[in-house]
Structure formats: C-alpha cells, structure tokens
C-alpha cells in the first residue's frame, strides 16, 4: 500500500503495529493506534505529550475530549464500504467543529472516483494499492475546480 495526496506519493511516517508488538514498544510516537488502543493509552499520551495517529472505522463513533486532538497528528478513517458516506461528514466535522489541523487520511474500500469528494471534505491523503496510483491521479484531472458548493 502507498499513501498519495492530491499531487503525488507521500512517505508514510506512521507505523501500525500488531497488538503484541505494540505492548512492548517503549514510545508510541508516530504509532497508528486503533480506537481501542488510543482510549487505553490516552492518559500516557497526554502525560508524555506524544504525537500519535488514530485509525477509526467508518462505523465507529468518535467522541473527543478537550485537548485530545492536540496529540493526534493524523486521523485515518477506514472505509468499510465505499458506499458508506459517513466519513465525509466526519471529516467535515473534524475540520469545522473541532478545527482539526492535522492530516486526515482515507483508507479501506474507496474508489478513485471519490478522490475529489474526499479532498473537498477535508481529507488530505488516501491509502491505496500501488498499482492503482495512476488511475487515482488521472481521475483528479477531471477536477477543474468548478463546484456549486462554497
């Protein structure tokens, strides 16, 4: 899998570890945590002021406390099904309600035809198969920046 933004491939600075390795790890810096682990380690993250990334599934509810977002460098929203449009609203909420400035990434079952919508709702990057990269970037060419919505 590779990460692309609207221009090209990006280096993935986050690592996702299986449970057993995660528990042995001394620093969580730049680890991609699922909702369960994130809740579990929240105290530690806040105390040590560690920056992590959070991965949630499109059907999971995200409830934040004050300051939580400060330590989340990246939020990865994993589409269980590309027809499930909830992440579009979630991304909008993150940007507009929580004024989240970090990276928002889409992964999972998504189509290149959704790229423009994703970007317009506040996503920055997508995680895709390397062989699909050209199609994803090609389809962006249909985007001429003309939209009815502000």
């Amino acid at each position, binding site marked *: 899998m590779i990460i692309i933004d609207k221009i090209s491939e990006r280096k993935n600075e986050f690592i996702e570890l299986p449970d057993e390795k995660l528990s042995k790890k001394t620093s969580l810096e730049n680890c991609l945590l699922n909702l369960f682990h994130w809740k579990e380690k929240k105290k530690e993250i806040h105390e040590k002021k560690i920056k992590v990334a959070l991965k949630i599934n499109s059907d999971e509810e995200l409830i934040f406390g004050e300051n939580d977002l400060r330590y989340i460098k990246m939020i990865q929203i994993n589409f269980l099904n590309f027809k499930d*449009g*909830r992440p579009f*609203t979630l991304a909008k909420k993150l940007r*507009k309600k929580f004024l989240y400035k970090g990276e928002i990434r889409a992964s999972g079952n998504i189509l290149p035809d959704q790229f423009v919508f994703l970007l317009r709702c506040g996503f920055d990057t997508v995680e895709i198969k390397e062989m699909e990269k050209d*199609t994803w970037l090609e389809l962006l060419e*249909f985007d001429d920046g*003309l*939209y*009815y919505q502000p």
Partner: protein
Amino acid sequence: MYKYSEIDKKIVANRVKQFKNQVDRRLSGKLTEDEFKPLRLMNGLYLQLHAYMLRVAIPYGELSSKQLRQLAFIADKYDRGYGHFTTRQNIQFNWPKLPDVPEILEELSKVEMHAIQTSGNCIRNISADHLAGLTIEEIEDPRPWCEIIRKWSTFHPEFSFLPRKFKIAVTGCSEDRAAILVHDIGLRLIKDKGDIGFEVFVGGGQGRSPYIAKKIKNFLPKKDLLNYLEAILTTYNQLGRRDNIYKARIKILLNELGIEKFKEFVEENFKRFSNKKLILDKSTIKNIFKFFKLPSLKPGLEKVPEIKNSLFLEWKNQNVLPHKHPNYSIILVSLKSNEKPPGDASSIQMRKLADIADKYSFGEIRVTHEQNLVLPHVENSRVYEIWNELLNINLATPNIGLITDTICCPGMDYCALATARSIPISQKITDHFKNYSHQKEIGDLKIKISGCINACGHHHVGNIGILGLDRKGKEFYQITLGGSAKENASIGQIVGPSFSEKDLMGAIEKIIKVYKKNKIYEKEDFLSVFKRIGIKKFKEKLYDNN
C-alpha cells in the same frame, strides 16, 4: 426558463467526460459491477429486466421545446422511439446500450440537460408544483428555489453517499400539487407578517413504511435555506441507518428519534456548521428569479370561446385551467390515453408537441408528477385551435383528475424489483372507464398503481391505491382507500385481502358503486365520501359473497 451559466455548462460537460471514463473502465474490467453500479446509478443508469434504463433529469419539471425535440431525437437514435415521463417529473428511456450512454449524455448536454443524480443514494432531482408561477393564489414561485437547491445539491461532496435516496419538493401555494408531505424534505413558501420564508417538513415518504412528513420549522428565513438543508442532511448522513436498506430513509431515523430529538440535532448542526458563504443574499436570489419571469403576455379574450363541439367542450372542461393572466389559459396534456402506457410519449408526439409549444406557449412545456404535460401560457382565443392540433396526435384525452388519469409505475414489464405488473392494470382501467360522461359522473378520483411495495406509483396516497403482489407465483392486487398526496395528505387504508388480476376490475366497480350511492350532493368527491363514511361500507360490499 433557466439558462445555463458558463459554470453550469462546464460542470455538465465535465460530467459527461467523467462518465465516459467510468463506462470505459467498466467495459475493460477495471471496475467491477459492484463498484460501477453506484456510479452509474448516480448518473441515472439502471439495469432493468430486459435492458438498461436511463433516467434523464427534468429539473422541477420544466422543459423547452428545444429540449423536448432533443429527447425525441434521443428516443429515435438510441432507444425505441418513445420515452416515459415519471412521477418525479423526469423522463426515462428503456432501451439504451451501455456504450452509447456517454454519447446520449453529450447530446443532452447540448440542450442543457443531464442525468445527474436521478438515481442513487444522493439528493435527487428537485420537484415542484407544475403550475409554479401560473396561479393567482401562489405566494411565490418555487422554481427559482428549486434551481438554487439543484445547484447546491449537485455533486455535493458530503452528500453523494447517503444511507439512501433523498427527495426534496417545493411548492409556493397552500394547495399542494407537488406532494411535498411525502418527500424526505418538503418546503412550502409562506408569508409571515409580510416576510416570505419556508415552512419545512421532513421525513415523509412512501415505500414499505409510508409516513406523512412532520413539520420541523414553522418559518425559515430565505437566507438560511441552504444552511438549514445542510444541517438536516448532515444529521441524516451521520445518523441514518445503514444496516438495513428498508430502514435507511430519513423517515425511519426521524421516527426512531422522535421529531423533537431529531430537531435538536438539526438545530445544533445548523448552529455549528452554518457557513457564511451559503447564506443567500438578496442579489443572488434576485439573479435567479430573473430567469423565471412570465413571458410578455398580451391582452385578449376574457374567456375561452365556447365552440359548439361536444368533444372540445369536454376537453376544455377537463384539461384547461385559468392562468393568472386573465386572457390566457393553462393547458394540461394528458398522457393517459387508452393506447399507451401511462406517462409514455412517442418521439412523434414529442416533436409535434414541441412545435405546438412554440406556436402557442412560448416554447414552454412542463411535466407533472401525475405523469402529464402542461402548456403553460396559451391565449384564450387559441384554445380551440390548439385542441385540434393535440387531437391530431392523440394528446387530447379529456381526463385530467378523473378515474382514468392513473399514476402508474413501470411494474414487472420493466422493473427487476416488481412483484406484479402495473401497466396492464392501468390499461384495463382506462379501457373500462373510457366513456367521458361515466368518468365525469364519478368525478375527481385518483387511482395510483405500484408494482411492488417500493411504491413508485404512489399507491399509498391514491384515493384508490393498487399494489401488485406475488401470491405463490400469481399476481394479486391489494387495494387501499382514502389516501391523498395533497395538502390534506393521508396514507390509504388497506381494505382487506387482495384480489386476483381477474377480480380486480370487479372490485373497483364495487368501490365506485359504494361511493356513488353514498354521495350526499352531486359534486361530493370520492375522498370526501370516504372520510365521511369510513372504510367499513366498502369492505362490506367488497367481501360480501351474497
């Protein structure tokens, strides 16, 4: 009529290219059917029983003669020479081929038309009162508002993958001809202390669980329209059920939460997310309204002359309405002759009608949700002339609002979801009651027929509703009585066990008999009698074996 701006043109042209790319990827196998399906649906392309079907948007039901001619051209070149007008004021072609569809879309774009969001789980074509801008009692023309909503909802990045389809209708009158109370959102323009704004209804719908919409806002200022719609859609997109397709419409969410709780969410989203750029300022509104001015109408005869021709007089009586300009009339063109499925028009009829519209009605045509057409501005002095021309193309059936003016979905003849046929039923009814004076004696009566519980034929809100069912491989029809889609909207009550195809006409006859016997004054209509006497008398007659 609305004219595309440069932006509209580019957006539609771009969409054509994009869809061509999607079709190419499908044909070469880069997209699976599962992936392609939502993409093609968002572009109005279905796969039915025998072929693909393309649904073309007719925003708020308004067509120009040029557009109608182009539809005729498409019907001939890419289809089988006809089109079907739907209950959401759109048109469907029943036989296009997949590789041709991008080309069809290109032909449509030449006359400022498209198939965007005519299907799929997104905000569908906005529908409106087909007499918008034509009646005296109207508070304000709904069409400019539909156009404003059309733009906002087109390719909305957040709302293109909703839990389920989403339909919005707008009316500017207290009399409801747009069935706003059976839409996901219904908007009615109202006046409050001199200000005009919207009364907002939400959660209406038909299908498996029919609901009449509930009022969520007594008065919404015009400027807030889009932000408020956005707040409703945000709530729905986030909370609407996605675990069960039959429970995914907003009506179910609303009923699970209760209107008060639902409203709290909406108001919260409205407060939190209101986007300054979505606030409609006066000049934006004014600019859109400019497109919908009446054409310049000239003085003439106060009344339509009473030519001594009984056929003409029947038609005039039934299909001609007064225009707000005293020297003009509104003509309703019935698509319910006994020769064609309801709502169908041949390419020849479309072309001729386009000519007639040019000659008599400023090139304007409208589509009604009852699957008829309208010629909006015809001089009183020329009504007889136009009747003659309509008669020549078999478009002068005098039955608007009568028992043979049925609403009918395509049913099992076309639709892969159907449980029974509906068009042959409608044809039987049209045949059985074809005598005008018999129909007239029965008076205003709406029969609505659906081929399955999805209710595209609006059977729940028919005065007489007919629902096709499959009983052990045989077609059966369930009858509901007392439904209405008007301002007094109600869901029909099931009268009892369903009828076989063979027994259905007899049952309808009996219903009509009960109605006739129980009217207390000559013009008392079916609905009023039903409300007065209730369902029991009908039941007794229908299931009495003696």
